[in-house]
């Protein structure tokens, strides 16, 4: 359906350069496993593609079927078919999950979705994700367990039907059953649509279930290595040290910094995220 091309992408956060020239192409119906140690820019890449204003693009380009993604607002990127399943989905107090989902669906339609059609779609997606319909009446992600939040992200993906789904550690916090629900949903989309995926995970287990078409390893803010599934198996067995010796790349250590806290954010959680 759509091809995403990233060229020489440089991204900074609070004047610190995180991405230092990323080149990557995702073709329709591909599933890319994006792997690498913590703090090397995987989540930054996905956030920059989605347009998170905290991440400043200092150089490079991102295009979707030739269209300049960097000129689009965040909501325009979503409406063009880009979806980000977040590592830490925001808890938004007061905003009812169902109202949010309806607003998101209506944002990409000319006429608002009929109540019955919305209910039917929500019921079907909730069933697939093994989510109780009661959750739709709770505030968005507020009080959800880690696993519920991740399943709610995939539920949104099912309802919004994007062309490119970027899933950032969607398997963290999931029990075995929930992991199967998530991977089944991804597999169904892989089999029945032309959707493409960028999937970040630290565990080979998810990749074994969804079978990525290729693998990219991000080190020090760049794609250091691309290849097939054998890379995942090797990392699973040996970690990342072999890359240092085989490619001659010195792997930098992760920085830990405190985040700014604002209304609705829990200071403790913000620190724990890092």
């Amino acid at each position, binding site marked *: 359906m759509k091809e995403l091309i990233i060229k020489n992408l440089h991204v900074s956060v609070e004047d610190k350069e995180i991405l230092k020239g990323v080149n990557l192409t995702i073709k329709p119906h591909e599933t890319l496993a994006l792997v690498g140690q913590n703090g090397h820019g995987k989540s930054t890449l996905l956030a920059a593609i989605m347009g998170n204003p905290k991440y400043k693009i200092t150089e490079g380009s991102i295009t979707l079927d030739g269209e300049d993604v960097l000129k689009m607002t965040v*909501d325009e990127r*979503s409406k063009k078919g880009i979806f980000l399943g*977040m590592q830490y989905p*925001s808890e938004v107090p007061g905003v009812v999950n169902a109202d949010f989902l309806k607003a*998101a669906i209506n*944002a990409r339609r000319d006429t608002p979705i009929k109540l019955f059609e919305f209910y039917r779609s929500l019921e079907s997606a909730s069933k697939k994700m093994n989510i109780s319909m009661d959750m739709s009446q709770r505030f968005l992600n507020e009080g959800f367990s880690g696993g519920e939040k991740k399943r709610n992200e995939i539920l949104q993906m099912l309802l*919004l039907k994007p062309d490119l789904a970027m899933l950032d550690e969607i398997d963290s916090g999931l029990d075995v059953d929930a992991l199967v629900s998530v991977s089944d949903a991804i597999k169904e989309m892989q089999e029945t649509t032309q959707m493409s995926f960028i999937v970040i995970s630290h565990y080979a287990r998810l990749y074994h279930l969804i079978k990525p078409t290729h693998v990219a390893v991000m080190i020090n803010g760049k794609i250091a290595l691309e290849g097939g599934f054998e890379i995942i198996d090797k990392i699973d067995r040996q970690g990342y040290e072999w890359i240092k010796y085989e490619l001659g790349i010195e792997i930098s250590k992760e920085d830990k910094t405190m985040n700014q806290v604002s209304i609705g954010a829990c200071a403790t959680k913000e620190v724990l995220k890092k």
Partner: protein
Amino acid sequence: MINLLSNKEEQIKNNTLEISLDSQDNKNYSLDFKSIPCNNLIVNLLNNSSVTILNIVHHSCKNITFNLRDNSHLTFNIASFEKECQNHVVVNMDDDSEFNGAYADFSNGYNEFKFDCYLNGKGARATWHLATLLKNDDKKSFEISFYHKNKETYAKMENYGVCEDSSNLSFLGSSKIIKGAHNSATHQSAKIMVFDKNCVAKASPTLCIDENDVQASHAAVVGRINEDHIFYLTSRGIEEKEAKKLITLGYLMPILSHFNNQKTIDDIKKNIERRV
């Protein structure tokens, strides 16, 4: 719903009207501040009575006192939509009485509201919830205070405000626990969301505690809308303006859960949606 001021023996003395209620079946009364024929209104809830009073505030400047006798229960809902007002509500509570107050303020212009709750009797319990929206040059002040004067008393207040344009909002007030009011608990929370740089917002909850054996907490937050929340909503295709509206509605709508009259709930919803 029964008009609180109808069919009552009205005796105005010294610019004060005094009414006694003896309902034990949770009767619902309505009260329009503007219709109070004098400056001061005193409402006595007799022992074991239980009533709900819905008050729609129009332009008014009144003093209202509720005296809750032993084991009585008052739910007091206030909604104001259009006109400026300046009112003072006092609640005096006897043993095991209960007061639940909620104020949905979507009025324009100037509003100065003062609320003093005296938990005089053992085991008295009071809760207070407020949601207010300010736009343009609106100027509003809410001073909410609880006085724990006996043991095993409980009070909780939650004040939520949204400021836009050049508006000015103050959440003031205090919770005082006197010596001897042991095993009491008091909790305060004030949150103001500020949209524009010309807004002035102040939240100052204070605790004055003269007893060791108590539970107390207070929290005040004044800040801009959370950028992570905006990003999350816009990343699903919702335009930024619509996302801000959803978040603001989410900030103000929970006040509805404290109201029990459907027409008033609908009126508040309409007003919130019109003004946001």
